[in-house]
């Protein structure tokens, strides 16, 4: 009995840890999107702000990246789903011997590193372009075209896997029945096979879009004049990130939650409708007047969807009237006061130390110390200016601010360090 409850407890603990591992970074990221410091972080909490969202929507490069990503995404969806469906149909037409070989060949692009696909796409289409005697700015060397082609190379294989799974449950007798009843091959495909494949095609399309949207290593070789969102983000990180990135992350998390809830609500609604159809009498069915369940009735996903939607509307509404200026000003005032106090403290300590040194008169030379321990782990590479908000002690020293190394080699920083070490001893 006791063992059992211990077992249960450990399962719950495991689940908690697992979900914390999965969702923790997202939660931190989302909180950081609403925090006012200029470096994305969740603690210490300073002020609730929506300015990072407006910063995001004013960032031309990010917006352009999103636009390009969506364009590429749609292109990839159309191309990969079409190729995937063709590949899947082909697979069902082949004999068992050929099938294994064909399957390996068609799956291979998934196993090839994205970088290789990127480079080879670029080189291949460049050769074609030259063979056709076209200019360097022709359609074939267009960044959008190359990216769509490059990504579809392997995304089509994913689509094919999804479609094959559904196609395997397809009864080919259905196509034969359609033909037998006088349908042409095109009609049999459109009226019988395609409706059957619809759910799988939808899944494959979503999968293809997401895979395309998040792709970096293939795109990085092919984007040309059309940097996608991932490319823009990667380039931005080199110059330091702001919580605007967190805001973007938060929006994508929210969109995902919306899509998931919408999908779940839809599935549940279909189940309920099927149940209602089953319970309906024949007359009700033929008159089409059987009791349809309400959208929200016994459908938690729909309820959650509505709640999330309402919450979003409320937050957006608040954001348009809310102004964190007072809070930010307060925080800055508080920081200024803290800083002044530290400066006074430092000066007092320095005074004390000089007096000691005078008394002991050069008995020991100060040892070379390590870089300042109170610096961030990144050594300030991301944004030197963010350090001022993060670390008030280095903000005090004007020399430290100027150095790219977070004040590690500034003489005054050294002295400060020594002081603290000295006081520690």
């Amino acid at each position, binding site marked *: 009995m006791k063992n059992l409850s211990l077992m249960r407890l450990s399962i719950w603990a495991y689940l908690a840890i697992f979900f914390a591992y999965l969702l923790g970074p997202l939660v931190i990221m989302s909180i950081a999107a609403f925090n006012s410091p200029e470096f994305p972080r969740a603690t210490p909490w300073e002020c609730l702000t929506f300015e990072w969202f407006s910063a995001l929507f004013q960032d031309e490069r990010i917006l352009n990246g999103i636009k390009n990503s969506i364009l590429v995404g749609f292109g990839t969806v159309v191309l990969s789903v079409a190729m995937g469906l063709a590949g899947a149909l082909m697979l069902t037409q082949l004999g068992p011997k050929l099938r294994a070989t064909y399957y390996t060949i068609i799956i291979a692009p998934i196993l090839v590193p994205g970088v290789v696909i990127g480079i080879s796409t670029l080189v291949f289409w460049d050769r074609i372009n030259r063979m056709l005697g076209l200019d360097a700015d022709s359609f074939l060397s267009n960044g959008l075209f190359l990216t769509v082609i490059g990504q579809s190379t392997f995304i089509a294989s994913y689509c094919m896997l999804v479609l094959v799974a559904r196609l395997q449950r397809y*009864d080919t007798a259905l196509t034969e029945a359609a033909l037998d009843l006088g349908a042409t091959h095109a009609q049999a495909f459109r009226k019988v096979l395609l409706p059957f494949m619809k759910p799988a095609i939808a899944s494959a399309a979503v999968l293809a879009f997401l895979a395309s949207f998040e792709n970096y290593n293939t795109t990085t070789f092919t984007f040309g004049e059309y940097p996608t969102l991932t490319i823009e983000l990667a380039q931005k990180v080199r110059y330091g990130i702001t919580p605007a990135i967190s805001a973007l992350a938060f929006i994508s998390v929210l969109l995902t939650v919306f899509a998931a809830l919408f999908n779940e609500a839809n599935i549940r609604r279909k189940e309920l409708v099927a149940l209602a159809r089953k319970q309906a009498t024949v007359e009700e069915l033929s008159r089409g007047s059987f009791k349809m369940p309400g959208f929200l009735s016994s459908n938690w996903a729909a309820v959650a969807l509505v709640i999330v939607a309402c919450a979003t509307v409320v937050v957006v509404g608040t954001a348009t009237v809310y102004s964190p200026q007072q809070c930010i000003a307060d925080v800055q005032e508080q920081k200024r006061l803290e800083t002044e106090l530290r400066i006074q403290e430092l000066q007092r300590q320095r005074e004390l130390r000089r007096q000691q040194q005078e008394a002991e008169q050069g008995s020991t030379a100060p040892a070379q110390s390590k870089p300042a321990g109170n610096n961030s782990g990144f050594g300030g590479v991301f944004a030197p200016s963010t350090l001022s908000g993060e670390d008030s002690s280095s903000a005090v020293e004007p020399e430290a601010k100027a150095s790219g190394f977070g004040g590690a080699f500034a003489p005054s920083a050294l002295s400060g360090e020594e002081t603290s070490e000295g006081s520690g001893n």
Partner: protein
Amino acid sequence: MSAGVGVDLEKLWIRFGDFVAVRDANVHINGGDFFSFLGPSGCGKTTILRAVSGFLEPSEGQVLIGGNNMKGIGPNKRPTALIFQNLALFPLMKVWENITFSMEVKGASAKERRKRADELLDMIALPDQGDKLPWELSGGQRQRVAIARALCAEPDVLLLDEPLSALDLKLRQHMRTELREIQKRVGITFIYITHDQGEALTMSDNIAVMRAGVIDQIGDGKTIYNDPATAFAASFVGENNVFRGTVKQVQSDTALISTNRSGDLLARVSSANQGKMKAGDDAMMFIRPEAFALAPVGAQGDHFVTATVTNEEFEGNAFNIFMEGEGGKEMKVSLPNLGQSFDSHKGQPMTLQYDVQNAVAMPAGDLATE
């Protein structure tokens, strides 16, 4: 003969690689007939059906429908409709859309289609069920929808591939009569595939018995049952007691067979084999369980068999007696239940007699394996 469209198979061969699925089939099916292909699974009967419906091109020979050679004409252009073994109703379409699919692909309006669907639903006794989805119907109802869907295409020939095999016994028997009635009403040619001899015998005007790609015999049910052409036909259609032996003497249409374990017995040579049997040939003779009658114990002669009763069972309409003759020769006898008293003879010897007309002899051949 009625005005329906006939079907002819002429020297039809169908091969898959080295495997011969159909060997030199020559069949003439009268217009308006209910014609069955009867045979065990894997005998090639479905292959023939697919060749008629156009899903398969014959390797040799030809299929004629209404006298027209169907070579190179696809299934969607042939005047045939096929009812699939698993019915193959379109799962995402409502019943009425299923039924009128053949009109939809020709571009008929929804209103027209709906009207026709309602007529057909009335005909198959499923009024007002048009808005259901196929999985919402019972097995027998789905069966009838499949028939309606095929009939909606107004085919000249309806092909049925074991459509009743998935149904339970009661429903199967009911559907037999229903199918037969529908066929009489619409007056078109039905070609029916089955491994169930009961279905074939009760419904068909004519039956072709198939074995391993070869058509053994074509004839009406009575001929096939009473006058089988081959040992296979005799053993596959209905129950039969087989006696192996050699021909001792042939006299016009009767043969004296020297059986291996039951002595010399007289039998009628089946009509397909008359003149083909001579003394010394290996032969088989068949006697139906119901063709036996009880005789005084110990009676001797060329139409008496004596054996020991091993088991008895009561089947309702008949008493079945299982017997073991000399050398382990097993026999089954069915005595119709006419209300007579029945005394158990288990373990006792019993003598049976038969009318020579009810015993058929033919050259030895392969038997149907159960």
